């Protein structure tokens, strides 16, 4: 009786050793925190670069004095990703720790060859979390990106991470992509994966150790455009307006700013928020499908450089219509451009067809081919909410004062 009570306790105690024993204990100073991972494909091998943090140089009170770089980027080749990482141990002083990975960068040529293989490792490796962002290096190898100093954050990968998160929230022309979203997008019929592009502006040749002490960095990393994938293969780039359109349709803009041309000369700026999109697929058969994108948004007027009577209700209506027209134009141009140049459905309308008309969907063999003939209608409704803390434009006020 007593044994039966004690035995489970004893067994679970013994189980503790293999399940959670000291074997995987790792002190903080016995590991290298990987902040950025770059993946390039060279021939049939991988060229990987890891940006590891040098903690002593990151701390606010470094006793060693800032003589060393805050991060070290190490590169190695290997037939597979794990192979390359294994080979990397001859370069790294400590075990690599991937749980705090912030950025994964793919070289453009690698992305064009297809990401399926490297993505498998990233999603399979248990130590990695999946909250890092994935980007494509425009016209460059990923390792070039990870070799750049950042001017604000001592850890460039961390800098890239916060940079992308911020601009994703405050600017419509960037979008963050995490591993899970990417995997879903690449594997789902009727969806297209996309990743923000990153490029080096300025002279990268100057990216030496002096760079981080300059007030105006001579070179910097900038997000620009969006890489569009057909399945796992990159097929082309969307420009700034294209990215905006993508984000409008995907309902992934929190807040952004735009400008409108005035009736006379000059421009007016608006802040857009509360932006929501709804996609409706209309049609009875494969032949007469039509995509309707409904966008609703609110705007605040933030800057008026032209002569408009802001106290007139008709002016507000005018602002509404102008924004409607501009957003519609952006989306429709992008639809037309991508149909013409990329020849794929970058917006993922196919998925909506699948959801809203499953019967029709199953009769479609190649959605991307079908899509080219499907008309896309964009309906935008904007409401002006606030005009700011002054009423008439300053130009008007000063003219009257004179």
């Amino acid at each position, binding site marked *: 009786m007593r044994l039966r009570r004690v035995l489970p306790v004893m067994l679970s105690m013994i189980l*503790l050793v293999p399940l*959670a024993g000291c074997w995987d204990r790792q002190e903080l100073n016995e590991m290298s925190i990987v902040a950025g991972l770059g993946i390039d494909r060279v021939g049939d091998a991988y060229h990987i670069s890891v940006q590891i943090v040098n903690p002593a140089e990151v*701390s606010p009170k470094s006793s060693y004095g800032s003589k060393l770089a805050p991060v070290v980027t190490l590169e190695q080749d290997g037939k597979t990703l794990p192979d390359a990482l294994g080979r990397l141990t001859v370069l790294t002083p400590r075990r690599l720790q991937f749980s705090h990975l912030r950025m994964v960068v793919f070289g453009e040529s690698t992305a064009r060859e297809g990401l399926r293989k490297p993505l498998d490792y990233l999603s399979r490796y248990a130590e990695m979390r999946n909250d890092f962002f994935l980007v494509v290096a425009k016209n460059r190898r990923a390792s070039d990106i990870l070799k750049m100093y950042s001017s604000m954050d001592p850890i460039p990968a961390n800098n890239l991470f916060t940079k992308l998160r911020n601009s994703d929230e405050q600017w419509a022309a960037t979008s963050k992509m995490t591993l899970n979203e990417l995997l879903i997008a690449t594997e789902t019929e009727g969806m297209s994966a996309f990743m923000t592009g990153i490029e080096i502006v300025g002279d990268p040749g100057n990216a030496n150790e002096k760079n981080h002490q300059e007030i105006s960095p001579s070179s910097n990393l900038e997000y620009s455009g969006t890489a569009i994938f057909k399945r796992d293969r990159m097929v082309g780039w969307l420009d700034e307006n294209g990215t905006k359109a993508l984000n409008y349709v995907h309902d992934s803009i929190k807040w952004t700013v735009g400008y409108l041309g005035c009736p006379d000369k000059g421009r007016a700026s608006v802040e857009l928020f509360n932006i929501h999109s709804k996609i409706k697929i209309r049609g009875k058969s494969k032949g007469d499908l039509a995509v309707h994108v409904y966008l609703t948004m609110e705007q605040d007027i933030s800057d008026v450089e032209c002569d408009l009577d802001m106290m007139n209700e008709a002016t507000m209506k005018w602002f509404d219509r102008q924004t409607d027209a501009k957003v519609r134009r952006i989306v429709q141009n992008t639809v037309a451009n991508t149909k013409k140049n990329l020849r794929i459905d970058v917006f993922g309308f196919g998925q909506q067809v699948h959801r809203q008309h499953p019967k029709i969907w199953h009769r479609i063999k190649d959605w991307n081919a079908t899509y080219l003939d499907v008309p896309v209608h964009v309906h935008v409704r904007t409401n002006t909410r606030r005009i700011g803390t002054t009423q008439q434009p300053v130009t008007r006020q000063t003219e009257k004062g004179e």
Partner: protein
Amino acid sequence: MSGTTVNGESDAIVARLEDNVNRLKRESGGSSDIKIRELQIGLPGKKQVHAAIVSMEGLSDTHDLVRSLLEYGKTAARETADGEFSLPDYLMQFVIADSNVWKVSDFVELYDHLFAGNGILLLEGETVALCVSTQKINARQVEEPNVQSVVRGPREGFTEVLSWNMSMLRRKIRDRRLWAEPRKIGRVTQTNVLIVYLDGIVSMEVLEELRRRLDKIDIDGILESNYIEESIQDSQFSIFPTVSNSERPDVIAAQLLEGRVAILVDGTPFALVVPALFAQMFQSPEDYYQRSMFSSLIRMIRMLSFILAVFTPSLYIAVTTYHQELLPTILLYNLASQREGVPFPAFVEALIMEVTFEILREASVRMPRTIGQSISIVGTLVIGQASVEAGLVTAAMVIVVSITAIANFVMPAFNIGIAARMIRFVFMMIAASFGLFGLFLGMIVLVLRLCALRSFGVPYMSPLAPFIQSDQKDTLWRMPIPFMKKRPENVAKRNVIRQK
């Protein structure tokens, strides 16, 4: 009780005064604090009677007794009905002015009275001695309690004198139902112990159990209430105390009103209370002297402190050595940069700091008050700052240990703080070898252990486990006094209505 006799002699007091006196001297080894005053008592119509007053120096004041006997001798010519009384009775009835006189006929009782401070009057030709209450109490006055201090509330604490302590309780509870059962425990020390309870409210099971356990005690001496605590506690090797103590009469009175039993021990200002439950350890008397919202908040902070005191170092060790992915990235960079160049694993680091702190704490309790300053300087500056600057310990670890140490002293019951200190080390070891997984298993074992404990038949974790709805008003938080209409049901099983 034959321990007081020598050579199998009879205990009886003999008629010859000289023999009695000699025996006293012999059996007490001629101790100089036993004073023997010999005198002649003049009695009406009789010749003078030879007598001796035996008393303890410092414990008794026999001045009044001697004077009343001698005064009587001078006015002995007065006619009285002395023939009707024997001499001792006569003295008891007419002569001795002190409040209490006992007639004893054997040395066992005589010694009891003598060492309690009573004056012993031995008379030539009599086989009884008179014991007169001449006690003089030389003791510390009632002072403010040192250990359990409050901002608002009574400022008096128990002293070392049992009768004073009892009187303080009596002053708070003026009811005939406040019963005090005397006991004498300790074969050599003969310590007076009182079992105090409120008749009609106290749980009879607890009281019976307590009496049984007290009766079992066979020990030579009781010098402090802990001698009794350890003899009556439920589990000898439990880290958690199952008997609580207090040096505050107001706390004991409140506990009595809840139906608990108090044990007052002569010679110590700390009274014991049973049953003692886990939730009770987080209740300070001040909880009831401040408004309930504030008390509830503070009580929750105390419980949080307990959790901090037990788990902070172990959680830190587990997370930094096994589960780095749980840390926010920036915090990880920060901690990693601090750990650069620290030669010890986090566990050893924590152990060094914890042990150092325990040494400091012990030193500050034991050292002479006058050199207290130097210890605190060495403790804070040398250990805290210098070890970080030398790179032997991380600043984060110093913070963790400091939080732990401070949180530890929040406990109103000092003994639960000691328990927290001890299990902290156990959990640190578990965390160092098994990480969070082990830590959580350890927590489960701890909770199971707590739930299995009992204090005098009452489940230790009640009213949380088993859950008692009506007792929740005064467990994790305290409801305003008008809402507390019932006594705790887990303790006072009968007569639970407190107010209507």
